[in-house]
């Protein structure tokens, strides 16, 4: 696995993942710069992503949807903040209301900082993802990504019942 380090900051609601890839930063950059490659990696296999707009430049907008196994579509967008090819970029990741990709103001926005640095001929990538509140992160996860967090409560319940 390319993942070399993971840290959870519960108080700052931040996930930091460091991964080493066997390619130069330029190649990793291309994954994000090409919508056809990006959609191969962004959505989980159960919810493939389709990028309909793709502008990886400061102030640029990426619009995409993910399709559930039942065919339901979840609309999302990225708002690109800063770009430093091929060393990284920062963007906000939010939900859209519909296929017109109007921002959904009621749903949370995550902040993402991606950095790519060359290391022994490969690339060390650091992905930092932050959510404004616990509820925001909950909502993000509930939006069809994977199962809800309720299993955790069941686990504790089982533990205390044992």
């Amino acid at each position, binding site marked *: 696995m390319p993942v070399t380090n993971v840290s959870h900051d519960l108080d700052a609601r931040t996930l930091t993942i460091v991964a080493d890839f066997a390619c130069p930063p330029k190649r990793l950059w291309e994954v994000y710069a090409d919508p056809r490659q990006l959609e191969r990696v962004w959505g989980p296999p159960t919810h493939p992503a389709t990028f309909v707009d793709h502008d990886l430049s400061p102030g640029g907008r990426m619009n995409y949807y993910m399709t559930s196994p039942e065919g339901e579509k979840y609309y999302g967008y990225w708002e690109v903040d800063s770009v430093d090819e091929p060393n990284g970029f920062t963007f906000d990741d939010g939900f859209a209301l519909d296929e017109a990709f109007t921002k959904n103001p009621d749903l949370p926005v995550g902040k993402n900082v991606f950095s790519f640095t060359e290391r022994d001929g490969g690339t060390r990538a650091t992905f930092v*993802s932050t959510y404004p509140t616990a509820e925001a992160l909950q909502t993000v996860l509930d939006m069809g990504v994977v199962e809800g967090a309720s299993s955790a409560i069941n686990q504790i319940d089982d533990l*205390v019942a044992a």
Partner: protein
Amino acid sequence: MDGTDEDRADAWFHALSDRTRRDILRRVLAGEHSVSTLAASYDMSFAAVQKHVAVLEKAGLLTKRRQGREALASGDVAAVRSMAEMLTELESLWRGRISRIDELIALPQPDTGRTTATTPLPDKD
């Protein structure tokens, strides 16, 4: 796991290492209870039960609120536990993306470094 996670785990396991506290937590997870109601359920002093409640509260497993003279306790597993759980869930999502990137960059690249939607790349494995 970072230090914060470890501290929290210590607090949880300490809080849950006691049979009475597990029983209190089970009750308050099911619904809000006043501390005096809880105390009446155990063969120990009000102060002893109050102390158990305080340990659970400190571990973030229980929250208390005041209503008149009464202290009402409820299980707060969702708030605390789910933050750790949610970050773990988010982590698994990111791990998935990272392994898909890893597979993608291992594929032979066309000269342009670009592919089109109409020519799907072969899937690995």
